[in-house]
């Protein structure tokens, strides 16, 4: 079984939010909510500055606290790609997983269940990239199997410097940011 992950090149990302819009339409994300979003971090003082722009979403952590805290098993690790998913009609909306996620990746769908990025498994099953990856005008996102050394994601991680978000949370995130 593959272990899906995402590698995002912050050098190429321009923060245009196309990935956010694409996710909205692809996944019928209700208005006022988002499964992915853009963070910018500016460091330094004028005129010596650096800027990192990141497209963020659920990290499909290898060690997901949102899954362990879930009382119903609605939050689970899906066999396919070892991704973290929510089964809507199993979820009671207790919101423990929202509190447990260090990344704020989840929200309560207006229909009552916990929702978040699915890594667009419905597309991946058809052999397509996730919607956000497929629209990105700068081609700065790559998606694939982290366990396959020949995959683009593995090759990028092998050849570039990267970081993950809040590694100290011990969640082992699977969205990587190239720097």
């Amino acid at each position, binding site marked *: 079984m593959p272990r899906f992950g995402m590698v995002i090149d912050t050098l190429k990302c321009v923060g245009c*939010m196309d990935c*956010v819009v694409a996710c909205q339409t692809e996944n019928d994300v209700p208005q*006022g*909510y*988002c499964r992915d*979003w*853009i*963070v*910018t*971090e*500016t*460091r*330094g*003082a004028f005129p010596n500055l650096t800027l990192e722009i990141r497209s*963020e979403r659920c990290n499909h952590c290898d060690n997901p*606290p949102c899954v*362990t*805290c*879930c*009382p*119903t*098993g*609605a939050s689970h690790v899906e066999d396919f790609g070892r991704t973290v998913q929510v089964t*809507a*009609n*199993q*979820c*009671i*909306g*207790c*919101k*423990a997983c*929202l*509190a*447990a*996620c*260090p*990344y*704020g990746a*989840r*929200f*309560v769908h207006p*229909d*009552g*269940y916990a929702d978040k990025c699915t890594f667009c498994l419905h597309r991946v099953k058809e052999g397509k990239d996730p919607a956000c990856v497929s629209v990105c005008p700068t081609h700065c996102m790559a998606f694939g199997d982290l366990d396959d050394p020949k995959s683009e994601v593995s090759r990028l991680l092998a050849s570039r410097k990267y*970081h993950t*978000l*809040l590694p*100290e*949370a*011990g*969640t082992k995130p699977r969205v990587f940011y190239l*720097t």
Partner: protein
Amino acid sequence: MLEITSTRHNPLVDPVLSVWSWEIPVYLFFGGMIAGMMILAGLNMLRLAKGERAEGFYSVQTPILGFILMNLGMGALFLDLAHKLFVYRVYMAFEPLSPMSWGSWVLLLVYPVILVSALIRLPQAWPWLGERLPVLQRLSDALVASPGKIRLLGGLNVGLGIALGIYTGILLSTMVARPLWNSAILGPLFLFSGLSAAAAMVHLVASLVPGHPAPRSFLGGALAMLVQPLGDRPPEPRTADGLIKADLGFLAIELVLIGLLFIGLLSSSASHVAAVDLLVSGKYATVFWGVVIVAGILVPLALQWLELGHRIPHTVIPAVLVLAGGFALRWVMVGAGQASHMVAAAGF
């Protein structure tokens, strides 16, 4: 200098996590208080099993009160659920790593134990029920007559009470994402806070009871469970003193535990230090210092000390303050805990 912007805008998540408002604090407060009552009741059942007179013990009636509070607490929890129709799903699974799952199952065990415990008080509180449902009367009689069963029941009460009390803290403390909750102290803290609230609650209810015989009608009986849990007699002086002494101990321990919580967090990461700031100087500081610490612990400690020494008359004021402080502690911890979040270590 560091400037951070984010376009995320999810309700209840941004700008700070606020998925739980009053419902969960109410649930945790009642849960803790019930846990405390079960422990107190259980301990007294153990004494009852040794042959001492049941009516004389202040907390044998608490199961009935506990049962009512439990329903209120569970009601609050239910109100908080966003996907209510699927609530039954909790009991379609047992998730060994999920404190919430544990809690749900513990609560499921607590119910029958409380109900069975209530049978001890059946002849006093609801004699008409016993008359109408002789089975219950028989069960009650059998229970009261059998020290072994009462001992077992007492043990169950103490055990489940401790589990429930600690659970209310563990539920939060397992969430690494929320630095304010990242402390093993939270379980014992909520347990002792629950105990002090239980003592205060019993004290309060007991003090409110004038010396009338309990009504025997359906509604009157139900009300009697609430306002005359001690039956037809007001609390004996030693009962009241016992409660006050217990409460003094609980409050003192609570204060120490809060201190330990702070010391633990402050000696941890930047995220934890920032989390403590939320309580001591941030948005939650007024309620924390004013209601939790001063009104909820220090003042009742002082008042009850004076009451014990008979330097001031007995009042319900300390009990009310302790209850307010106990709820405020849950409210502050739930609110500030959600607002606390991990901050990225500087630089990558």
